[in-house]
C-alpha cells in the first residue's frame, strides 16, 4: 500500500508538502522567540506592580482589621492626623502639623496642615482643600451612632470598638478652620498612638455630602477619596487594583507612574512572578522560599523582627472548651518546635506569651508549656474528654506574616491530636465568609493571629482578650475575664512604662494559667523586592507604604532616569 503511496506522489510533491510544513514551524518559532526581548524595553509604560494575596473587603480601613484592606488603602489612599516614623516608631506630624496635650491628659488640641488637596478622580472633583470639617466627619462617623454614614455598608468599626474609644472620647470640637480639640473622659496614654494607626484615616466630608445628594452613600467605601499619595482608578475582583499618583500630594516625595496590586492568592506563584519580573514586590513571601530568594542576585530580601503573634485560640464560650484543664490538655498535646520547622521554616521565634521579644513589655520568666502527650491525656481524661472526642480546627485560608500556612499547621496539629485520641477535622472557607462565621463563634478552635498596629503593648491585650473585643470580632477566644480587663484598663491609664510592664507581666501569667489561647510564634517580617525598586522598607507598625517608592527602569541610555513624577507642590509646616 505504501509503495502505491510513493508512486502516487511524484518526488517533487512530497518535497513541496515538507517545505510547507517547515515554513509553518519556522513561523511559529519566529513568533515565539523573535520578539522576546525579555525585559520590558525602555519606552514601555513604567509603574510598580505589587503582588497582593487576596481581595480587600472594602477601600476603607475603618471598616475591618484585615491587613489586605489596610495594605491597599491605609497609606496609599488616605492620610492620618499623626504618623509613625517607620525606623524609630515615634509619633510624627501627619495631617496635624502640631498638637498640644493638657497636663491632666484629658484634652488634645491639633493644628491642621493647610492647602492639602483631596484626590481629583473621574467620579468626584473636590472644590475645597482639607480642613477641620473632614477630621470631624471622619471621627464622628465611628464615634456617634446617628451620624448619617455610621451604618452605611452596615459598617462595624472593630478596631475602635475593641478599644471602646467611643466611651473614652467625650467630645470633638472644631475651634476654627484648621484647629480641633478632643476631650477624653479619662486619661489614655495610648490615645495618640491609636490616632497614628492605619485605622484612623481622614475621609472627605465634601465627598460624603456629594454622595448623600446623589443617594449613593455606599460608594464612599468602594470608590474612595482621600488625601493619600495615590488615587483609586480601577478594581477587578480576583484580578487587579490600579492606583494612579495624586499629583497635588501634600508631601514632596517621588511617586511612581502607576501602582498595580496584582491579586495572586498562592504564595509560590507570587514568588514565581517575582522571578519573572511580573511583580516588583510581593506580599507575605513564604518562608520556604526565602533561602532561594536570597540566592537570586536581582532580588533584595529585608528581614525585621515581627511585632506579631500567631496563636491557637479555643472558643471558651463553647463547652467543653470553657474548662481550663481541657485547654491545657490540648496545649500540652502539640509540639511547637515541629510547627516552627514545618510551617515557619525557622524564620520565627517561639512565643512564650502574646508579647513579642522586640516590645519593651516583654518578660521571659513565664512558665512554658512544653510537649507532654502523656500529661495531656491524663488532663483530658480527668476533664471527662473520652477517646475519639471530635473537635474542629479552623484554618484561615489566606497567608499572613504571623501564620504563612494555617492549613499545613492544622494538618500537623490534627496528627498530634490523633496521637492523644482526639479526632480533629479541619475547616476552612473563603476569607470573608471565614471571618463572618468566626464572629458568630461557630468554631471550636481557630489558628489565627494578630500583627500590631502601633508600638504600644496594649495593642496585644485589649483587642485580643478584652470583653469589649468579643462583639467586635477581634477576641477569637470569646474570653471575658473581668479581673483581666481591670488589670489591662489600669495599665492603660499609667504613662510610666516600667509600672505598665509589671501589670502586663501579671496579665501574661494569668493567660499562661487560663490558656484561652496558646501563643505559637512571633514570625519575622520579610520584604522581598526587585533590586530596581527604591524607597520601599518594612513598616513594623501596620501595613505597607508605597509613598516615595520608585522603580529605576534599566533604560539603555547610561543616565538612570527615575521615571517617577516629582510633586512640585512645596510643603509649609
Amino acid at each position: 500500500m505504501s509503495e502505491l503511496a510513493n508512486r502516487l506522489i511524484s518526488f517533487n510533491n512530497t518535497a513541496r508538502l515538507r517545505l510547507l510544513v517547515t515554513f509553518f514551524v519556522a513561523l511559529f518559532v519566529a513568533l515565539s522567540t523573535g520578539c522576546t526581548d525579555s525585559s520590558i524595553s525602555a519606552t514601555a509604560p513604567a509603574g510598580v506592580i505589587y503582588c497582593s494575596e487576596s481581595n480587600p473587603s472594602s477601600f476603607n480601613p475603618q471598616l475591618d482589621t484585615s491587613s489586605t484592606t489596610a495594605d491597599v488603602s491605609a497609606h496609599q489612599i488616605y492620610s492620618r492626623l499623626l504618623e509613625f516614623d517607620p525606623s524609630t516608631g515615634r509619633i510624627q506630624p501627619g495631617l496635624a502639623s502640631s498638637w498640644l496635650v493638657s497636663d491632666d491628659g484629658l484634652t488634645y488640641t491639633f493644628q491642621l496642615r493647610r492647602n492639602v488637596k483631596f484626590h481629583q478622580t473621574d467620579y468626584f472633583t473636590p472644590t475645597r482643600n482639607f480642613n477641620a470639617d473632614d477630621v470631624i466627619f471622619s471621627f464622628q462617623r465611628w464615634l456617634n451612632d446617628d451620624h448619617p454614614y455610621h451604618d452605611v455598608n452596615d459598617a462595624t468599626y472593630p478596631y475602635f470598638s475593641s478599644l471602646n474609644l467611643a466611651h473614652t472620647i467625650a467630645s470633638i470640637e472644631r475651634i476654627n478652620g484648621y484647629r480641633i480639640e478632643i476631650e477624653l473622659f479619662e486619661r489614655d496614654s495610648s490615645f495618640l498612638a491609636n490616632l497614628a494607626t492605619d485605622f484612623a484615616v481622614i475621609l472627605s466630608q465634601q465627598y460624603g455630602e456629594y454622595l448623600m445628594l446623589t443617594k449613593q452613600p455606599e460608594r464612599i467605601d468602594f470608590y474612595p477619596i482621600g488625601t493619600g499619595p495615590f488615587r483609586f482608578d480601577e478594581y477587578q475582583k480576583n484580578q487587579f487594583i490600579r492606583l494612579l499618583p495624586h499629583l497635588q500630594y501634600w508631601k514632596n516625595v517621588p511617586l511612581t507612574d502607576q501602582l498595580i496590586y496584582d491579586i495572586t492568592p498562592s504564595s509560590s506563584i507570587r514568588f514565581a512572578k517575582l522571578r519573572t519580573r511580573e511583580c516588583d514586590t510581593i506580599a507575605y513571601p513564604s518562608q520556604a522560599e526565602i533561602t532561594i530568594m536570597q540566592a537570586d542576585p536581582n532580588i533584595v530580601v529585608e528581614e525585621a523582627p515581627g511585632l506579631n503573634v500567631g496563636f491557637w485560640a479555643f472558643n471558651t464560650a463553647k463547652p467543653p472548651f470553657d474548662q481550663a484543664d481541657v485547654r491545657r490538655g490540648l496545649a500540652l498535646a502539640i509540639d511547637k518546635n515541629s510547627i516552627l520547622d514545618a510551617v515557619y521554616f525557622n524564620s520565627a521565634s517561639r512565643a512564650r506569651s502574646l508579647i513579642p521579644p522586640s516590645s519593651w513589655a516583654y518578660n521571659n520568666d513565664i512558665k512554658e508549656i512544653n510537649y507532654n502527650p502523656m500529661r495531656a491525656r491524663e488532663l483530658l481524661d480527668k476533664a471527662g474528654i473520652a477517646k475519639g472526642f471530635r473537635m474542629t480546627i479552623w484554618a484561615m485560608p489566606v497567608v499572613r506574616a504571623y501564620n504563612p500556612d494555617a492549613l499545613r499547621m492544622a494538618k500537623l496539629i490534627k496528627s498530634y491530636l490523633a496521637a492523644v485520641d482526639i479526632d480533629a477535622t479541619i475547616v476552612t472557607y473563603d476569607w470573608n465568609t471565614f471571618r463572618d462565621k468566626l464572629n458568630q463563634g461557630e468554631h471550636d478552635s481557630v489558628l489565627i493571629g494578630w500583627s500590631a498596629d502601633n508600638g504600644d503593648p496594649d495593642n496585644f491585650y485589649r483587642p485580643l482578650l478584652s470583653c469589649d473585643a468579643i462583639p467586635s470580632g477581634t477576641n477569637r477566644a470569646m474570653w471575658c475575664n473581668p479581673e483581666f480587663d481591670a488589670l489591662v484598663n489600669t495599665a492603660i491609664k499609667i504613662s510610666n512604662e516600667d509600672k505598665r510592664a509589671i501589670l502586663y507581666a501579671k496579665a501574661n501569667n494569668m493567660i499562661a494559667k487560663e490558656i484561652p489561647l496558646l501563643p505559637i510564634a512571633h514570625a519575622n517580617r520579610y520584604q522581598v523586592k526587585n533590586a530596581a525598586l527604591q524607597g520601599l522598607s518594612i513598616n513594623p507598625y501596620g501595613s505597607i507604604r508605597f509613598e516615595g517608592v520608585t522603580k529605576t527602569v534599566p533604560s539603555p541610555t547610561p543616565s538612570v532616569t527615575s521615571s517617577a513624577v516629582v510633586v512640585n507642590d512645596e510643603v509649609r509646616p
Partner: protein
Amino acid sequence: MITTLIRYFNLTFLTLLILVMLSFGLAYFFPGDPITNLMGTNTLDSQPLLMLTSQQTNIFMQFWYYVQALLAGEWGVSFATGKPLYQDIMRLLPATLELSIYAVTIALILGIPLGFLAGMNYHKKIDNIFMSSSMIMYSFPVFWLALLLILLISLQAQWLPMSGRLSLLFNVPHYSGFILVDILVSDIENKRFAFNNALQHLILPTLSVSFIAFAVFLRTTRRSVADVLETQYIKSAQTRGLPGKTIFFRHVLRNALLPVLPILAVQISTLVTNVMIVETIFSWPGIGDWLIQAIYERDYPAIRTGMLLVSVVVVIITMSLECISQLIDPTRDRFAYARR
C-alpha cells in the same frame, strides 16, 4: 441543501432549549432557595426577573420569564461580587474564546499537513516518528504540562511571562474582549509594546492547549489518509494512469478531510476543558478560571449562567461544524436521524 440547513437549525434550537431547561432546573437542584439561586439577590430592578418572583404559582410561567430575562441580558447578580453577571461574562467569555481559537488554529495548521505527510508515508520511518511522538504528546495531563512549561520556560530560562493576558502596566480599553484585537484597535501610545507583551503572554497557554489537540488532529488525519489510499477508487484512478498530483489534490485531499471534520467537532469539547484548566494555572482572566472560583465561593447564579454560556457556545460551534461537514460531504447519508 436547504433541508439539511433547516434540520440542523431546529436540531440546534432543540439542544439549546434543553440546555436552558437544564440551567433553569439547576436553580432548584442547587441548595438554597431557588429564586435567589436564579437571580443572585432578591432586590433587583430588572423587569422580567421581578415578574419571575411574582408569579410563584406555575412553573411554566416562571420558565417563560426566565427565558425572557436570559434573552434580555439580565442574568441576575453574582453572590460574591454583587455585580450583574452580564458584564462579567461578556468580559470573560471572549478571553476564553480567544485562547481556544489560537490553540485550535495552531493545532490545525500543524496537525493536518503533518497528518497528510504521515499518511502518505504510511509505515515508513517518518510515519513511525510522528505516530510515537503524537502518542506521547496526547498522553500528557494538561495541567502537568502547563506546570512543566512554567517551571522550565518561565522560571528557569525566564524567557516568557507566566500569568495573565497582558502586563498590568498597560491599560487597554475594553473593545471586543479579544486582547490582540483590543490592542490593535486601541490608540494607546506604546501599542507595539503592548502587542508584543500580549503575544509573549499568549505563547505558553496556547502551546499547552494546542500540544494535545495537535497530536489528536495528527493521528486522525493520518488514519483517514491511510484509509483513503487503501480504497478501490484510488487504485482504479492509478490504473487509469492519472498523474500523482491530480489524484492527490482531486481525490485524496477531499476524501481524507471529509471524515476528519466531525471528529474535530467532538474534539472541541475536550479542547474547551483543557483551556479552562490551563486558565486556572496561567491565571488567564477567562470564564474557566472564573467558574472554578465561583465553585469555591458557592456562587450558584454564576455557575449556572457560566455553564449555560459555555455549553451554548460549544453547542453552536459543534453543530455548525457538523452541519458544514454534512453539507459538503455528499456521501454521508443525509437524513441519518429522520429516516431511521
